[in-house]
């Protein structure tokens, strides 16, 4: 369904089976399928974890936490049931990379779950897929059933004497459920309200048992790491930023699409070469580097960035989820900030006051601003409100709403000024986002 695109700079590891019918188990087997699990069954749990550590694989869900290290936090001496939970909630605006994995290579995810289970001593894995992705739930259901039929799941997998079960599960529409502790609540049949940490899921997770939560792409990378060796995967990327990842190019580029590129790939090349540049002879204004929760980059910044975790980390920013959104010079940054805030206001679970009230106030203020009712003091007020959400909430959604907002106010203050004193939006005089009544003075 999702169109496939390709570019010569791509290094196809996770995407190597895309478009080859590997959702069918027999085709998957011809393409080295289920070899990684069989290899892992000959390895000790520590060997598996060390191989993943050597690969420098970092979580592809957004936070970039080292995967091998996450697995090593699971206690060995416990008699509680342990679980692997695959995060397929994919809802971060700009992100559409787990979709092609689940569509074209579902067995790679199943293999990743089994290997993670072998590494931490879990016997059950759950694949949670967002409710909107029903066709992918159906693909995963069939893949799991086929794997059981072959004896790759269930009792005594591959005649190893070990048992492993994989279950599928689906959500019903909620961005916040992608947050790992909310994900567990949802899987337990509840509202997706996060849990207070500590304890961390690796110690107390699903139904109280130690739980490893990883993104779809993270786990789909694991079988390749086991087969090629951690070092080889690591070598594709810069130090401490192993491998390749799927980047979803969207917005104002000539060739949007999902491309697998090595970490550290220059963003400038990604936009102009892989993405084919900006359409309609326009110029670059801004880039959202990894989903709507990341700091927005100016054109100048973007043209100097390399796409790896540490290049962003040393600026105090985030590489994020792989969703690279390109904005041309005709984009109104006030409107953009408003649309982003509208999203977070809608998705806030309402538990923490700074997030619940902050996103609402910001949405109202930005709406008024975009409609020409902005006051000069509002510009600082927006920044102040956003800043006061940072670090003051139970889950990172509050930060995720504050971060893009703060960076837009800092970098495009002039555009806010252009909207002052009842002037129409300079980029769209017939501005459309008007559904909120302009009330109150906050």
């Amino acid at each position, binding site marked *: 369904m999702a169109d496939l695109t390709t570019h010569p700079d791509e290094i196809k590891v996770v995407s190597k089976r895309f478009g080859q019918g590997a959702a069918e188990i027999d085709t998957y087997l011809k393409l080295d399928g289920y070899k990684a699990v069989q290899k892992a069954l000959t390895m000790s749990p520590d060997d598996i974890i060390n191989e993943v550590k050597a690969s420098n694989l970092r979580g592809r869900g957004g936070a970039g936490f080292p995967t091998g290290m996450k697995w090593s936090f699971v206690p060995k001496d416990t008699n509680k049931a342990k679980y692997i939970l695959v995060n397929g909630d994919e809802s971060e605006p700009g992100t559409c990379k787990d979709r092609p994995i689940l569509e074209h290579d579902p067995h790679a995810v199943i293999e990743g779950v089994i290997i993670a289970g072998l590494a931490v001593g879990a016997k059950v894995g759950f694949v949670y897929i967002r409710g909107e992705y029903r066709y992918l739930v159906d693909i995963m259901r069939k893949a799991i059933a086929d794997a059981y039929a072959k004896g790759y799941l269930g009792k005594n997998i591959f005649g190893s004497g070990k048992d492993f079960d994989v279950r599928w599960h689906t959500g*019903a529409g909620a961005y916040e459920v992608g947050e790992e502790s909310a994900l567990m609540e949802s899987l337990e049949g509840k509202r997706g309200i996060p849990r207070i940490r500590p304890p961390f899921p690796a110690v107390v997770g699903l139904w109280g048992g130690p739980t490893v939560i990883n993104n779809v792409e993270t786990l789909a990378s694991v079988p390749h790491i086991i087969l090629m060796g951690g070092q080889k995967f690591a070598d594709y990327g810069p130090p401490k930023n192993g491998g390749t990842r799927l980047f979803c190019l969207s917005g104002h580029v000539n060739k949007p699409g999902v491309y697998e590129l090595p970490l550290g790939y220059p963003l400038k090349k990604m936009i102009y070469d892989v993405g084919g540049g900006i359409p309609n002879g326009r110029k670059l204004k801004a880039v959202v580097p990894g989903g709507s929760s990341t700091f927005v980059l100016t054109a100048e910044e973007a043209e100097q960035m390399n796409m790896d975790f540490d290049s962003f980390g040393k600026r105090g920013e985030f590489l994020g989820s792989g969703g690279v959104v390109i904005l041309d010079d005709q984009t109104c940054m006030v409107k953009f900030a408003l649309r982003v805030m509208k999203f977070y206001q809608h998705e806030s679970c309402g538990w923490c006051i700074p997030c619940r009230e902050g996103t609402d106030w910001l949405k109202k203020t930005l709406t008024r601003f975009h409609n020409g009712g902005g006051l000069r003091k509002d510009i600082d007020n927006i920044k102040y409100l956003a800043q006061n959400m940072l670090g003051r909430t139970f889950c990172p959604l509050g930060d995720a709403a504050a971060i893009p907002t703060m960076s837009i106010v800092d970098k495009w203050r002039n555009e806010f000024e252009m909207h002052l004193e009842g002037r129409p939006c300079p980029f769209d005089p017939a501005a459309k986002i008007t559904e909120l009544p302009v009330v109150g003075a906050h």
Partner: protein
Amino acid sequence: MVISDKLDKFFDEKMKEYPTRRSFLVPMLLYSQDEVGYLSDEVIAYLAKKTELTELEVRNVISYYSLLHTKPMGKYHVQVCTNISCMLRGGEEILDHCKSKLGIGHKQTTADGTFSLEEVECIGACSWAPAVQINYDFHENLTNEKMDKVLDQYRSKAK
């Protein structure tokens, strides 16, 4: 029975995979809604009994999830994404176009019950924007003209 025996059996099988009775509740709500059209009082009572929860607890879960509805929707639920990647490529224009073509607004249903419309958040089609989901089917790289064709297809299917 409010839902088909087949679905009920499927729920029983799936519930065995979890350590608690309520764990499979969210998918059960969604699959029941798919069959019945919406989460009626009867469906809620049935699922409350099945999971050994109160109806209030079930309603509490329903209200959290944006795909779940307690009122009937159109036979074809047109969900237009206007989040960032879609907005940059004309998602709002597609939404306006749907509003005028169908003569309904956000979260409204046509008089004949064929279509309902909703502006939605990112549906994971950002690289193929602007995108719309009708029930569970994705329609991507849309223009107003393509959107017309898509709506026509559903309209003739409805007859």
